[in-house]
């Protein structure tokens, strides 16, 4: 068995410990930037929803500024964002390379996308429900938590699943500029040294990660949809 694996995927066996370190780095980047992005994206998505014209906390200046800023960041390709954010990253984390250095660009790349996902999930909430809650004298803040967020849990989970999966892709790209992780690993060995089995091994791992995320998301969506 060991013999067979050695013949089939010699480089993977050779770099086995490094592969797991790279996988750990990918997970680290995903979890840290994912959690921060989830929080920020949720806040911005909610703000976009409730400050839009005719909504419960309509506020044109806030809405317009946030809307435009999100559009700007969404239109910058991530690879350029990585380079453009180097000064800011250095300012916040102290260095612009390595796994920690990748976190800031990942957040900037993810938050605008996730904000839109949340915005569209919350847009699914029937205006009638908001009106009903208002007619009961529920305050705007409570309407956000008890109606908007509560009612759109399946939509939020769906948006989160999509965002986390796209985050997997971003972490691989961040790897290319020295962020470490599976993307870095695949480029360094699989591409630059033409060790194809390494490329395939990272692909298998990433496919497994994405399937897990999607499967997990689907279970929650099914459980929360009535």
């Amino acid at each position, binding site marked *: 068995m060991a013999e067979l694996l050695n013949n089939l995927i010699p480089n993977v066996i050779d770099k086995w410990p490094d592969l797991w370190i790279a996988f750990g780095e990918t997970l680290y980047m995903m979890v840290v930037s994912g959690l921060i992005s989830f929080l920020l994206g949720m806040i911005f998505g909610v703000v976009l929803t409730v400050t839009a014209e005719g909504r419960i906390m309509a506020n044109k200046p806030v809405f317009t500024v946030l809307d435009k800023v999100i559009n700007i960041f969404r239109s910058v390709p991530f690879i350029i964002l990585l380079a453009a954010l180097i000064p800011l990253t250095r300012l916040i984390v102290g260095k612009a390379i390595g796994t920690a250095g990748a976190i800031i660009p990942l957040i900037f790349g993810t938050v605008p996308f996730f904000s839109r996902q949340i915005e569209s999930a919350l847009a699914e909430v029937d205006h*009638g429900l908001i009106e009903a809650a*208002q007619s*009961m004298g529920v305050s705007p803040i409570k309407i956000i938590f008890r109606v908007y967020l509560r009612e759109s849990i399946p939509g939020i989970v769906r948006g989160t699943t999509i965002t986390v999966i796209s985050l997997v892709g971003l972490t691989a790209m961040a790897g290319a500029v020295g962020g470490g992780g599976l993307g870095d690993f695949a480029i360094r060995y699989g591409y630059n040294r033409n060790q194809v089995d390494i490329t395939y091994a990272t692909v298998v791992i990433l496919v497994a990660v994405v399937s897990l995320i999607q499967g997990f998301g689907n279970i929650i969506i099914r459980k929360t949809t*009535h």
Partner: protein
Amino acid sequence: MIELEHVSKTFGAGCESVEAVSDVSLSIGAGEIFGIIGFSGAGKSTLVRCINMLETPTEGKVTVDGKELTALRPGELRKARSNIGMIFQHFNLMRSRTVYGNIAFPLLDAGLTKEQEREKVRGLLKLVDMEDKENAYPSQLSGGQKQRVAIARALASDPKVLLCDEATSALDPQTTQSILRLLRDLNRELGLTIVIITHEMAVVKEVCHRVAVMENGRVVELGGVFDIFAHPEQPITQDFIRTTSNLQKVYDLLEEKSPVVQLQQDERIVRLTYDSRNVAEPVISVLSREYRVNMSIIFSSIEIIEDAPLGGLVAIMGGEDERIEQALNYLKERNVSVEVIADGRAAE
């Protein structure tokens, strides 16, 4: 209970503005079931939203249960709203919550213990006859059941006023009847003041005490339901009333020259309308017995509104000229208005 004084609501600004409600003044008494009827776009939904300030009137004063809502600050207004329940055409129940969760929703900040809350919710479920659906989700309920849950939810904060915005428009006729019956019971048992917005005259006829007819943002006619039905003044009101009666169909038959309305020379088609409260005599029997005229009824539409018969019938009256004349006079004396729609003699 509800006082609207010169309430106007304009949407938009400048030359594109639309005045949805213009200068409406209404006074709705405690314990009254008040109907507001109008075609879509007449401004009735906006008007009812002005009552609980979901729409802020551009002008005018809204007072509910002695509190001038138009003068309250947002926090005070929210508190005052718990005194005004509201139900909607599309029920607006939360899909993520069970029937129990939906009804308990307005009680979340009431400071009740779990037991008190359960007791309250179960009482409301009993009131709307939905005790066995406590743990169901709205998606598992029929339209009528959803509206019952919505009514229970609207009553959770013990309001004095219930606003119904087209609450039966999405329901089939039988379910509509059962919901209206429930509203009438609530009105009688709890002394609840109910405002019903509808485009169906049948709904008004079924439960309302008084009705306001709206057109182009204005109240064009207002009165007791019986009087409005008996003596509609505005063309729009007459239109609405016509929708509840089938007597108009005779005109279609005449137009089509249907065999049903082919008259002999000694026959006339007459339309009798009972529009005052004192028609108690069996006039048709009297006609055939005392005046020896034949009455062959084509259409009849008689409703009991506020415990008095209202409506009329269309019939072919046959007999000698003289007797027919006498019969018509007798009817007039008995406060039945008579209209001869077609005359067999003219057909010659």
